[in-house]
C-alpha cells in the first residue's frame, strides 16, 4: 500500500487544460436550443458505437479517458446504454453488417440527441470507401452533427469535436 500511495504522489496530477470547441468541425446547423445545450454542457453522457472501424479511433477514445486528457472532469462520461446517452460518438466506415445495429442504437437514444462522427472513415468512408460491405461515411446511415477527421483523430481533436457539438453555433 505504501508503494501504491508513493507512486500516486510521485505521478502527481498530469491532466492538461481542456481544448476549446472548434466550429470548423460542425457540419450541420445545430439542432438544439441553447438552454438544452447549457444543460448538456454540464453533464453529457456519451455512447460510443464502433460501426466498423479498424480500431485505431478506439485507441484514441480510450486515451481521452486517460489522465492527461481526463474527459470526465468536464462532466462528460461514457455510458453503457444508448438509452442513457445524449450523444453517440461513432467510428468507422459503417459496415453493412453493422448498419442495422447502428440505426437501432440511434433510435434507442432519446431525443434530443447529438451525433459526432470520428475519423477519416467516419467523415468520408476513408480508405474502405463504399462497397458491397461498407456503407461509407456515418452520415450515409444516421444524421451527423459534427465530424472530426484524422486517422485517427488525436484525443484533443476528439474532445474538440465533442465540445463543438455541445456548444451552440455562433456562440
Amino acid at each position, binding site marked *: 500500500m505504501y*508503494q*501504491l500511495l508513493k*507512486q*500516486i504522489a510521485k*505521478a502527481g496530477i*498530469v491532466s492538461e487544460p481542456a481544448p476549446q470547441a472548434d466550429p470548423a468541425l460542425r457540419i450541420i446547423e445545430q439542432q438544439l436550443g441553447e438552454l438544452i445545450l447549457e444543460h448538456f454542457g454540464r453533464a453529457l453522457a456519451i455512447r*460510443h*458505437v*464502433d*460501426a*466498423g*472501424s*479498424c*480500431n*485505431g*479511433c*478506439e*485507441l*484514441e*477514445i*480510450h*486515451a481521452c*479517458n*486517460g*489522465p*492527461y486528457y481526463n474527459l470526465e472532469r468536464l462532466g462528460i462520461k*461514457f455510458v*453503457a*446504454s*444508448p438509452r442513457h446517452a445524449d450523444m453517440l460518438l461513432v467510428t*468507422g*466506415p459503417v*459496415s*453493412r*453488417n*453493422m*448498419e*442495422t*445495429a447502428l440505426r437501432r*442504437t440511434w433510435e434507442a437514444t432519446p431525443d434530443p440527441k447529438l451525433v459526432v462522427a470520428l475519423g477519416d472513415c467516419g467523415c468520408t468512408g*476513408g*480508405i*474502405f*470507401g*463504399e*462497397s*458491397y*460491405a*461498407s456503407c461509407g461515411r456515418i452520415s450515409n446511415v444516421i444524421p451527423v452533427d459534427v465530424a472530426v477527421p484524422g*486517422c*485517427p483523430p*488525436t484525443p484533443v481533436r476528439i474532445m474538440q469535436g465533442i465540445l463543438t457539438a455541445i456548444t451552440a453555433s455562433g456562440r
Partner: protein
Amino acid sequence: MQLKKPAFEVQRIPGPMPASGATIKPEDLRSVCENARAQNARLVALWGSDEAERGGGYALHVALATPSGLLWLSVPLAREHPRYPGIADIFPAALRMQRAAYDLVGIHAQDSADHRKWLRHGAWPGGTFPLRKDFDAAARFAPSGDDYPFMKVGGEGVHEIPVGPVHAGTIEPGHFRFSIVGEKVLRLEERLGYKHKGIEKRFETMTLAEGAKLAGRVSGDSTVAYAWAYAMAVEGATGTEPPRRALALRGVLLELERIGNHLGDLGYLGNDVALAFGFYQFWRLKEDLLRLNAALFGHRYLMDLIVPGGVARDLPRNEGDRLVDRLERIQAEARTLKSIYEEHAGAQDRFITTGKVPPEIAERMGLTGLAGRASGQRHDLRVNHPIPPYEQVGVNIASHTRGDVAARVSVRFDEVFESVRLVQALLAQLPPGETLAPLAARPGAQRGVGWVEGWRGEVLIALETAGGDRIHRVHPHDPSWQNWPLLERSVLGNIVPDFPLINKSFNLSYSGHDL
C-alpha cells in the same frame, strides 16, 4: 520418429522469412495435413481464391508453420462445385476459416462439423461470393434477414445472456451468447463478422504500393505489424531489397507498438479488477510513449511509416538517445507498477486461476501469440526465425505455463521489458545509410509472404500479384482467428463478471478477423 518425405514438390518463396509453396491435389490435403500435424506443424491461415483469370477454377490455400518455416499449400479446385475435404478435425482453428472461405469464395469444406455462415450476415445474399472475380465490388444488395442458429444449452435454471454487437464499453462490435446457470458460464458462443468491410476485395483494386496504407488499417492497434508483413510480402514478390537501416528501424517501430499495446492492456487489466490506479498509471505511461512516437516519427501509432522498400521516415539525427532515455524512464515506472500489481491481494485474487487455457488444450486448439506463450506454447517468430534485424540482437522469449489471466499479465510485463531492451540494442547498432529503396519489378505473377510477430501474435500477409504492380489476391491473417475460439473455452466455469477481465487479457482484434 521418422520424418516422412513430402509427396509433393516444394518451391522456395522469395523473401527473408523461410517460406515455401507447394501445389497438392484435394485428395492429398488431409494426409499432408495429418503428416504435418504429427511433425508439430501449426495452422497459420486458410483462405480461398478465384483462379478463373488464370485459366483455373478456384483454389484453397493453407499456410502451416513448420519447424523449418512457412509452408503455403495450394489446392486447385474445380470450377463446378469447388470442394475439398475439411481439415478442422486435424487443425481445429480451421473450422471458422473454412466457413469464411465459403462465405467469400464459395469453396465448400466436405465433412465439416459446422456449415453455418460466418462472415456473411445480411449484407450479401447466400450463393453470391464477394471474392469471386466476377463479383462487382460496388454491388449493393437489399439487406436480407440474418438468421443465425446459436447452440442451445438446456437444463433447469439455464438461461442466456446475449451481448452485443454494440457493447457496454469502448470495444469493437461482436456478439457473445452466454448460457449460464446462476453466475456460472456453461457455454459462450461468439458471433463475429460485424466489421467485415471488404478489405480483401479492396486490395484487388489497388497497386502494390497503394496497398500498404490499407494493410496498415486491417487492425489499427497492429498497424506496424501489418505494414511490415505487407512490405515484406511485396519486397519478396518484386525482388526488392530494403536497406539495412530501414530493417533496424522496422524492428524499433514494431517493439514500440508492442510496448504501447501492452502498457494500455495492463492498465485496463487493473481497471477490470477495480484497481483504477493501474489504469491511470499505465495510461499515463502509454500516453508518454504515444507522444514520443509522434515527436520522433510523426504519428502516435506509427501508421504509414513502413512502406514497401523500407521506411517512409528516418529517425531524426541524435534522437535515438532521447528515445532510449524516455523508454528507460517508462520501464522503471512499469517495474514499480509490476511490484504493486504483484503485491495487491485483490488484483491477484482476480487474476490467478481466472480464464484458464491449459497448455494441452492450447496445443491441441492452436492458441497462438502472447496468449499461446502464457499457456506454454513457446512460439515467437522473432525467436523461431530470427531474420534481420532480430538476428543481430537476439530475442528472449517470454512464456508461462499456467494459462490464466495472471500468466497473460506476466507475459505482457516480460515482453515490455524485453522490447525496451531490444529497442536499445537496435538503436545502439543502427546502420547508417538510406531508409528507402525503389521497388523492383519481376515480370508475371509472383508470390510473396509477410510473416511478423506482432504484439498479439503472428500476422501473415499472403500475396499473389497479377503481373506488373497489380494484385491478384491478398490474404491478411490475424492471430485472433486462432485465439477467439479459445476465449470461448477459457471462460467455461468462470463467473460472468470475470468475462471482461478474461476478454481484456486476450484483447483480440475484431477488425483484423472480420476483414
